[in-house]
């Protein structure tokens, strides 16, 4: 009855209130900004001599809109990818065998290294048009956002509570109905969290993809990223400062206007027995909830969504078959499938080797392997250093709820800032004091990634049970014993989550951070990152392929043999 009542009451109060005006103004402003940016996208490529980006501060808001649109376009495609790829992997055992390992590798390889291929590909698709460059940039950002979102969605689909699944099947929901009524809603909280992380990670790729040189082709798209690149070329400190400010404002805006409301809204999708005490709130969502017009407009929308989600598409549910005699029949198909995968992967491997072998020999493989070892060393040492510094600080903060509340979002905010912003400082320091770039450039690779360690550890310390803290205080466990026996095991799973993300990010960052340019000065460290960056600059594709391939192999092995095992151990032993 209450629903009918709500509609009736709406009729009496149909006049707009002041909240409607605020909401309307906001919507119109967004529309106008998009329209203006669209004219830029539709234009042909500017002639090479005409600068696409100037260091004119008044254009920064426009650049910010262009960059943000790119990021949201990438986000849109990431969501489509997530819904299809992850669903296919979760629903089909055979696809799962291929798609999940693939996703795992894609997640751990340094995507930045592939940038040169995708740029060439998309420019070829739309010759002489900005759209090709736009697509390349959006695709680069997409590759930084999609994998963890797809993984999160896949994991949610696989862990749908058994009883809810039985309800859906028992009340005969079709595949389509079940997806929208059960599976997608259940996955929402995890997906939103991963989407936010992806947005932060995306900034790094914005900077890398808006201004990129592959051999003779130089692409500059108007945006904050190319603005930073231009400022680096010109050695303009003020421009860097303005770029940081712009980024800060943009992040704050989409966080407050989009993610906070979505998180607050997504509370209802959490499967928990009781309403939790601290519910995320959002002033924007409250504002929207108070407006009459917006609510009025939303009601038919949600009703039609519900109708759409209840269409009887797909097959009616079948009984679960997991008895032993059902297995034999599909065995033959399995064999065919395995063989197909094996043939395809051997062919892929062969074509990569054949391509690289046209110009390069074993000596190059040896050289790149050695360089990869250097970068590995750099990543390991810097991760260790960042952990030693940040874990104690994060624990200290995390155990103080009021501090944690303020610092945690701030660390998340910092994680978005790309390392390129520090190039000027790095080059100046290295050259002025004649420092060894192999050592001092290393710090750049954890610049953007250390924050993952910080905010995850803070989260872990904040979640540490109070009774264990009181018990250790009561028995006067202090000093090193307290760290070793009490808090470090307590935060270990959280810390490792952060460290794994940070480690992956650091490999990507090495491609940018081992070869640094500021004005006309270049500082290079030895490492596979610099190797790939230099090869990209020259358009030397066989070297790019070799560098990326070896780096990918090492990163995948590093993850499998080290991080994965460590995490499994921590999860088994230290999860409270």
């Amino acid at each position, binding site marked *: 009855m209450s*629903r009918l009542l709500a509609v009736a009451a709406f009729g009496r109060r149909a006049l707009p209130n002041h909240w409607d005006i605020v909401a309307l103004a906001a919507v119109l402003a967004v529309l106008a900004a998009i329209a203006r940016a669209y004219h830029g996208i539709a234009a042909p490529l500017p002639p090479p001599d005409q600068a696409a980006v100037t260091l004119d501060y008044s254009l920064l808001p426009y650049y910010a809109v262009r960059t943000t649109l790119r990021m949201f376009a990438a986000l849109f495609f990431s969501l489509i990818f997530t819904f299809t790829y992850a669903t296919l992997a979760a629903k089909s055992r055979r696809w799962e065998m291929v798609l999940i390992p693939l996703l795992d590798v894609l997640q751990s390889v340094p995507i930045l290294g592939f940038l040169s291929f995708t740029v060439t590909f998309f420019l070829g698709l739309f010759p002489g048009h900005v759209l090709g460059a736009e697509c390349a940039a959006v695709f680069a950002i997409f590759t930084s956002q999609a994998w963890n979102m797809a993984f999160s969605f896949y994991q949610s689909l696989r862990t749908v509570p058994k009883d809810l699944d039985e309800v859906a099947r*028992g009340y*005969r929901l079709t595949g389509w109905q079940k997806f929208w*009524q059960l599976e997608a809603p259940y996955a929402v909280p995890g997906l939103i969290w991963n989407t936010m992380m992806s947005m932060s990670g995306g900034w790094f790729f914005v900077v890398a993809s808006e201004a990129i040189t592959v051999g003779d082709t130089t692409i500059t798209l108007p945006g904050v990223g190319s603005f930073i690149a231009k400022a680096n070329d010109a050695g303009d400190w003020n421009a860097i400062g303005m770029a940081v400010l712009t980024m800060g404002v943009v992040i704050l805006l989409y966080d407050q206007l989009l993610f906070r409301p979505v998180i607050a809204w997504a509370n209802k999708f959490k499967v928990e027995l009781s*309403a939790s005490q601290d519910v995320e709130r959002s002033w924007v969502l409250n504002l929207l909830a108070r407006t009459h017009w917006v609510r009025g407009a939303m009601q038919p929308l949600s009703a039609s969504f519900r*109708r759409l989600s*209840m269409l009887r598409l797909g097959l009616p549910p079948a009984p*679960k078959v997991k008895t032993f005699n059902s297995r034999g029949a599909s065995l033959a198909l399995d064999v065919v499938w395995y063989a197909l995968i094996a043939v395809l992967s051997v062919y892929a491997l062969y074509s990569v080797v054949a391509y690289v072998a046209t110009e390069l020999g074993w000596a190059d493989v040896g050289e790149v392997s050695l360089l990869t070892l250097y970068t590995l060393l750099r990543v390991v040492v810097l991760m260790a250093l960042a952990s030693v510094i940040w874990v104690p600080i994060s624990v200290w903060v995390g155990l103080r709820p009021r501090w944690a509340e303020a610092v945690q979002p701030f660390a998340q905010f910092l994680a978005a800032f790309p390392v390129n912003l520090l190039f000027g400082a790095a080059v100046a320091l290295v050259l002025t004091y004649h420092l060894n770039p192999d050592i001092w450039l290393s710090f750049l690779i954890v610049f953007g990634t250390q924050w993952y360690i910080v905010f995850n550890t803070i989260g872990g310390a904040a979640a540490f049970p109070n009774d264990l803290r009181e018990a250790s205080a009561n028995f006067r466990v202090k000093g090193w014993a307290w760290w070793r026996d009490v808090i470090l095991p307590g935060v270990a799973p959280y810390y490792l989550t952060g460290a794994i993300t940070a480690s992956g990010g650091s490999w990507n960052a090495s491609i940018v951070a081992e070869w640094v340019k500021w004005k006309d000065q270049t500082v290079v460290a030895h490492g596979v990152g610099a190797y790939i960056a230099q090869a990209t600059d020259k358009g030397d594709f066989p070297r790019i392929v070799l560098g990326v391939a070896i780096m990918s192999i090492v990163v995948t092995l590093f993850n499998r043999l080290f991080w994965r095992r460590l995490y499994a151990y921590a999860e088994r032993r230290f999860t409270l």
Partner: protein
Amino acid sequence: MLDVTAPPLLEVSQVSQIFAKGSGEKGEPVLQDVSLSLRSGEIVGLLGRSGCGKSTLLRVISGLARPTGGKVTLDGKPIDGPAEGVAMVFQSFALFPWLTVLENVEIGPRAIGVSEIETRKRALKAIDTIGLDGFESAYPKELSGGMRQRVGFARALVVQPKLLLMDEPFSALDVLTAETLRTDLLDLWHEKRLAIQSILMVTHNIEEAVLMCDRILVLASHPGRIAAEIANPLPHPRDRLDPDFRNLVEKVYALMTQRPEPKPLQIGAAAGPNLGIALPRVSTNSIAGMIEEIAAPPYHGAADLPHLADSLQMEIDDLFPLGETLQLLKFAEFADADIKLTPLGRRFADMDVDQRKKVMGDQLLANLPLAAHIKRVLDERPSHRASATRFREELEDFMSEDYAERTLRAIITLGRYGELFAYDEDAQTFSYEDPT
């Protein structure tokens, strides 16, 4: 109201369910040759302990799972997949937290394409019947357990099933709430305000079964099968304190404590030790506590099980495994609906901790072939170490993987208490090396 001459509403014949092991081979049967039939107008209870396959049977009947063998028909039509005419109420309520009460109730008719207007009409009627008026736009999170389960009932009623299946519908509720819901449901049933023809409910609560059911089917495990059928002719409303009611409860208890006939040794396994005893997970503290409880007044060494269950607030799923472990270790034995301490059990009650540990160790070695086997292997090896995997695999020759794992866990707990051996969780090995 029971029409004996009419053809049965539900017919389950010779149903077996065998799950595949992780390795793909055929595992221990969960259900073996289960046959039962339900007529229109009766409430039938499936009573059994955890692991006897009663929930599996319910899922086979509902069409959620396909049996390995046998047939299920509803109104003469074979059930092959989730069927019209069957609705289920879940122990965990299983409500969609992102849907309101009304939306949760509407999900069944909407799924099969009933028009929105008709759905709304039926949903509001079901909500009214079940006493949920005023909560239509609430989310499940805002409701108490009792109200949530009412939503579960309304959701089932709205699809107008002939057969209502209930999987321990009251066991997640507190005592008072559960009783209110039971009597409300019985009232609706007897006033014929439910369009349901028959109810089949799974329970592990003996008193609940005697209170609600017209017939009680007792399931036994290893493999799951129907061990006994008890008719319950007591008139409604039933009174828990009525002597006839108490007698029936006693009778069911006695049926359920009957010692299962010893399992024949499997061919080929005869050479090794007989490891075919599956152990439940019980804590050594509850073993000691139970012995002390029975030894003390008012029981003085022999306790009436329904009474004991009541005073300890234990469900049979806790009580029976504990009692059986006591019986296995020769501390106590069942006699009809009673549990009686042996002389050893009486002495155990008065011992201090060290003596108890010693006695426990001796009883384990004497009565559990698995304990003796582990000790022998450790003795034989020069290193005095043995991997848990080895014993797990040996156990899996006799029982399913789950039971093997549980049995191993139980023997680790008991063996540690009896100081027979040490166990290192990280290395997953048995040894004699406790820290000194």
